[in-house]
C-alpha cells in the first residue's frame, strides 16, 4: 500500500485507456504521454499499458508501506527518497517506510511513477484510468491509500536508454474541415508560433485567435489530438479525456507522437504546426 501524504497538483491513476466505449460517449482517457508511461512500465517489467501514477507539474509525497520496485520517467521532477535524490529512467527498490517526494517539474509537465505489478484499483469499462463521472475518484487526495500488488519476486534492475526531450513541433494531418479555412489562415497556421494557455487532460487552449472563426458543424466525432476552431476564432487541441463528439470544425489532427509531446508542454510554452505530407 502507498499512502498519499501530499497529493501534488493533479495526480491520477492512468493506464492504456478505456477502449470500445466512445460509441456511447465514454472518452478514452489513459496516459497523456504514452511514450514516457510505456518506458516507466517497461523498466519495472510491467505490460506497457499497466496502470501507474501520472503526476502533473507539482508532485506528490508518498509513503510506502510495502517493499516494491518503482521507476519514474517523463519530465524531470527531481524525485527524492527519504530526502536523497534518485535517478529517473531506472528501476529503484523501495522499502517499507520509505518516503518518495516528487518535486515541482524542472522540465516537462508530467512524469510517470510505475510500480512493478501495477496498481490494485477497480477497473471500470476495461480501464483503471481516473475519469470524472466514471471512476470513484478523479484525482488522488491527501490520505488516500493506493493498493499495489505484491510483486516482490519480480527481479528487475533495468535501465532505459530513452532520454526525455521536449519537442515543440506538432506534426499534423489535415482535419476534415481544413478546406473550409482561407488560404491566408492556412499560411498563418503553419508559419506562426502559438502559445499554450490553459490546459488539462481534456484540452489545450491556445492564446492566439483566428481573425475569422468558422461556423459550427453538425456534431461529429472528435479524437484526442483534434484541433478545433470555434466560431469566435479560438483554437483548441483536444486531449485524452476529451469528449467523443463535438460541433466545432476540426481543422487539424495531431499525430500520436505530437500528442505525447504536447502532454509535456505547459502554459506559455510555444508550439508550431507542421503538416505531414502523405
Amino acid at each position, binding site marked *: 500500500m502507498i499512502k498519499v501524504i501530499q497529493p501534488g497538483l493533479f495526480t491520477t491513476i492512468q493506464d492504456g485507456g478505456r477502449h470500445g466505449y466512445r460509441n*456511447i460517449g465514454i472518452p478514452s482517457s489513459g496516459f497523456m504521454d504514452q511514450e514516457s508511461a510505456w518506458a516507466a512500465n517497461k523498466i519495472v517489467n510491467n505490460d506497457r499499458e499497466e496502470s501507474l501514477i501520472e503526476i502533473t507539474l507539482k508532485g506528490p509525497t508518498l509513503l510506502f508501506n510495502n517493499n516494491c520496485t518503482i521507476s519514474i520517467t517523463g519530465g524531470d521532477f527531481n524525485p527524492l527518497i527519504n530526502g536523497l535524490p534518485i535517478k529517473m529512467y531506472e528501476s529503484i527498490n523501495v522499502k517499507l517506510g520509505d518516503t518518495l517526494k516528487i518535486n515541482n517539474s524542472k522540465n516537462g509537465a508530467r512524469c510517470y511513477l510505475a510500480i512493478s505489478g501495477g496498481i490494485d484499483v477497480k477497473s*471500470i469499462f476495461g480501464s483503471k484510468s481516473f475519469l470524472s463521472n466514471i471512476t470513484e475518484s478523479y484525482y488522488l487526495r491527501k490520505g488516500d491509500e493506493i493498493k499495489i500488488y505484491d510483486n516482490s519476486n519480480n527481479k528487475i534492475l533495468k535501465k532505459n536508454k530513452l532520454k526525455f526531450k521536449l519537442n515543440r513541433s506538432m506534426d499534423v494531418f489535415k482535419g476534415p474541415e481544413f478546406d473550409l479555412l482561407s488560404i491566408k489562415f492556412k499560411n498563418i497556421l503553419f508559419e506562426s508560433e502559438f502559445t499554450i494557455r490553459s490546459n488539462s487532460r481534456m484540452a489545450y487552449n491556445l492564446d492566439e485567435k483566428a481573425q475569422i472563426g468558422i461556423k459550427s458543424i453538425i456534431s461529429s466525432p472528435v479524437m484526442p*489530438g483534434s484541433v478545433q476552431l470555434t466560431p469566435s476564432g479560438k483554437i483548441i487541441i483536444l486531449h485524452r479525456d476529451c469528449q467523443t463528439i463535438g460541433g466545432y470544425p476540426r481543422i487539424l489532427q495531431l499525430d500520436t507522437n505530437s500528442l505525447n509531446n504536447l502532454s509535456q508542454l505547459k502554459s506559455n510554452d510555444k508550439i508550431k504546426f507542421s503538416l505531414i505530407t502523405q
Partner: protein
Amino acid sequence: MKASLKSYFIYNESSILISYDNPIDSELVYTISNYKINIEKHIKGCIIEIVQSINSLLIIFNKDKVSSNELISELKKIENKESNYLKSNKIWQIPVCYDTKYAVDLESLANDKQLSPSEIIDAHKSKIYDVLSLGFLPGFMYLGFTHEHLYCERKQTPSLDIKKGSIGIALNQTCIYPQDSPGGWHIIGISPIDFFDLGSKTPCFAKPGDKIEFIEISSKEFQKMKKEKSLKPISK
C-alpha cells in the same frame, strides 16, 4: 436501400472517417447503422471501435495490423452490402416535466421564437424522434428531428450548470443531458430517468436507430419519480 454518397478520410494514423453527403434524415441513420453492422461482421481483428454519429462513422483501428489504405479498400468492398440490420421499431417513452422551474430556457426561447411556452412544449412532444447518435458525454443522446418551428442556434454563451436529465433543443435536434454538465443547448424540460447506468454492461438503454417519445409529466410526478432509484423508461 438508397445509394449513399460518402467519402473516406484518413483522420490520423489509426482512424478513418467516413462522411456522408446524404440529406440528414431517418433513412441516413439506417444507412449508417447498416454499414456499421457490416463492418463489425466482415472486418475482423483490426478494428478497435466504431463511433457512429449523425452523418459519419469514425473507424478506430490497430495500425500494427492494417494500414489506412488497406482498410479503406476492405471497407469499400462491403460498403453497399445489405446487412441483416432491421430498422428498429423500439420506441422508448421518456417522461418529461416542462415546468419552468427546470425548463430554464423555455421562456426566453419562446420570446425569441415569438411562440408561447405551451406551443413550444406541444411542438416538442408532438414528434417521435430518431436516436441519431450517442456521445459528447457518456449516454448523451442526439435526437432528430424537431418541428421546424423549434429550429434555433445553440446558445451564444453556454450554461455552466445544466442539471442531469435536462432536455435541450438546438438546430433541428433535441437532446438529453445524462449528467450535470456545461452545455450550449436551450433547456426546455427535465426527465427523472437515469440515462447512463455505470453498473450495467449496456450502460445506455437506447442505441442509434431506436426512437424516443416524450410524455409530459407534472412537477409533482417528476418529484415522485425522481425518488425511485434507477428508473427505467418504458418501451413500446
